[in-house]
């Protein structure tokens, strides 16, 4: 995945971090719920922002498989290639 896309995703995710987690904590393998302390309601908002930012549409299966930053990048990449 291109660095540019990772940074774009990181920027979206950083908007939803709780106060006690810094954006430095967002690494390629970071787990959204367990490591970044993002709750499932905010994860939905991240997905909606990702859809807008990358002009893609995610399905329920994609949501189920989206546990880490790497999962998100893989899903975004797959969707972009399918466009």
């Amino acid at each position: 995945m291109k660095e540019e896309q990772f940074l774009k995703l990181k920027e979206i995710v950083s908007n939803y971090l709780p106060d006690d987690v810094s954006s430095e904590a967002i690494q390629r393998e970071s787990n959204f719920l367990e490591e970044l302390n993002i709750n499932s309601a905010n994860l939905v908002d991240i997905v909606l922002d990702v859809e807008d930012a990358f002009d893609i549409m995610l399905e329920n299966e994609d949501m189920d498989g989206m546990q880490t930053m790497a999962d998100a990048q893989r899903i975004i990449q797959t969707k972009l290639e399918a466009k």
Partner: protein
Amino acid sequence: MTPEEILHHLPYNQPFLFVDEIVSINSESVHGKYWFNPEHSFYQGHFKNKPVTPGVILTECCAQIGLVCLGIYLLGAEGQDEGFNAIQIGLSSSDMEFLLPVPPGETVKVVSEKEYFRFNKLKCQVKMFNAQEELVCKGVLAGMFKTLSHGG
């Protein structure tokens, strides 16, 4: 799903049921009513000798009508209503403004418009009006819905 079926599916009981009637509902919006019974125990303490409906209760009323009734309707429309005995609901965020006090005995109208319902998260813009059609409070509420399979 009819308003009667939705009321039947609501996971609340007295003294924490704040929906009397669903006036209209569709996939984009809901309009419901509730009468604040002066016998509610919270009026004894909020405030001393001057009963006013607490803002958290107004928020709860907006959430039960605006989020939960609409959410049950939307889940039903998606065919996800089989496991409704085991529905799990959580309020995930609330951002409310309160403009007028609501005295005991008032009948309020709640109007809620869907912003989105995606991945079982429902986000709505809600407004509450008093019997004089004055805006009492308004805001944005969001909640998560989870239907568990039978026995789950």
